């Protein structure tokens, strides 16, 4: 239990990734699979930000009220996550557009029936 409390954010991030992976592999509705992709993205972002956290420090924004000597958390993972979030929504948007097209052609969102291309 203590391990869980100490590594809570890692468990959360990794857990979301694993849930997303399961959804992509095992679900049969196209929208649920795309939702699984979204879980994968979110989990990765949580993991990245958690890696950058340092105990007892604050946000890396200096201003007149927050002098430069204040200890702050690692700003690099936050910048990485900014980029990754934008990439993630781009991919999900494209996925939804493609899903609309596939639905127009096949009339169904069940991946077991969207098998026009065979072995």
């Amino acid at each position, binding site marked *: 239990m203590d391990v869980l409390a100490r590594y809570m954010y890692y468990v959360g991030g990794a857990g979301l990734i694993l849930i997303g992976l399961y959804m992509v592999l095992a679900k049969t509705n196209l929208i649920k699979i795309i939702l699984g992709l979204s879980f994968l993205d979110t989990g990765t972002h949580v993991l990245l930000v958690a890696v950058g956290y340092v105990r007892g420090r604050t946000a890396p924004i200096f201003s007149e009220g927050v002098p430069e000597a204040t200890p702050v958390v690692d700003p690099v993972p936050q910048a990485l996550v900014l980029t990754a979030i934008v990439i993630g929504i*781009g991919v999900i948007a494209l996925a939804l557009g493609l899903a609309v097209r596939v639905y127009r*052609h096949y009339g169904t969102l069940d991946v077991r029936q969207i098998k026009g291309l065979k072995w």
Partner: protein
Amino acid sequence: MVGGALLIAIPLASAFAIPLVGLALKRAAKWVPPLALAADLVIGLILLPRVLEKPIIVSIGGFPPPFCINLMVGPLGLSLAILISFVALLISIYAVGYIKTEPTEKYHALFLLLTTGALGVVLTGDIFNLFVFFEILCVASYALTAYRKDRAGSEAAMKYLIQGTVGSTFILVGIAFLYGLFGTLNMADIAARVPSAEPLHLFVILAFFIVGFGVEAAVFPLNAWLPDAHSSAPSSVSAILSAIAIKTGVYAIARVSYTLMNARGVLVLISAIGIVTLVIGEMAAYRQKDDIKRMLAYSSVGQIGLIVFAIGMATSFGLFGALFQLVNHALAKCLLFLAAGYMIYRVGSKRLADMDGLGRSMPLTTLAFSVGAFSLIGLPPFAGFMSKLSIVCAALETQRAAYLALVAVALAATIVEAGYFFRVVQGFYFRKQVAPDSDRQPIKETPAGALMPIVVLAVLIVVVGVYPGLVTNALRGAANELVNRTEYIRVVLGTP
């Protein structure tokens, strides 16, 4: 210092400008990619002699690495960049006349951006930047695969997107682990700190990266998307995907294994995966009789397997063979897909049986197709002969039983490859054409604008086959760059 950044800035700015050009004059948009790529090719060729002696480090933002992102324009990066610009230039010239589905200016913008992504992947020296440019490449290829919006294309693009995104997630998780362990994202810096970590952790991270990049590189068992995507996309898109996009996955695997992780012990496993991919690809290609593009797609899977096998050899000669095979496959497969594009268009079908007798009606196209096919099989005097010979010699040189066994399997697979390619070429020249319906147009040769890139590629394959020295110098330097990781670290970071 300037030249390196221009290699990426020019195609990027041109791609951003295409919608504006399209708004002003619709017909001008399709000429922007060839111009931008020609500029890139020229810059690359000018920089090459200098880079072979001493790599150029371009730091983006003006700060010294590792505090900023840097481009590492070394022999490996620049050789691949020249290959990418050259192949993409030819395909973009072909596409000027080939792409007719609306909205055409969007196609050209997406194509140029795909190429920019590939250029960024091979030139960058920062692992997260590699991921970003890799994503540019992937997202552009998802959109291009679905470009025709037909039933097959949409389904293929959807599957490609889902599998590709899972792969990208694995890469990002690997980057998160690397940052957590080492605190930096610069590839040379990570390479310098790697000896301080435990082998188990490095193995797990390497596994994540290989799975992630392996989806795009189409190694077994992650290649399910490739036959669908490469056969359902428009032919110019199939050409760029097979020739360039999957190679960036292979480059990334090589970069992570050699420069970053120094993963000597695991390389045999990588070779084994390569041979399995080769066998499965070639055998599946042999079974394809209904769709020539699907046959070519499976052939790509097989060839990637061969390249990955050669990458797993830890010697400089082995890597040289891998890179040479990579170049030859890019040239030949691009040629094959471009030729097949117009063959399918003129005949009206993708079935192999319908291609019989084309040797008479489309002489230049089928001749070029045969040149490409023979080069891939590895017949002299074509370029493929030298590269396959190099790989076999390198395997014999290692004198390790594992590699000898694997290379024997590779040679057996080559026989299968010869089988299905000869079947097609025999159909061109030695069988009669199926009598066309009276209301269908007689089959004419490919139009001149599209024929020019095809002929240029065929001629180049023969020239490289006869004078391999044209490319081997640069490739030898590139192979050395991969093997000498201490040199890489020293060039980027300076002596520590």
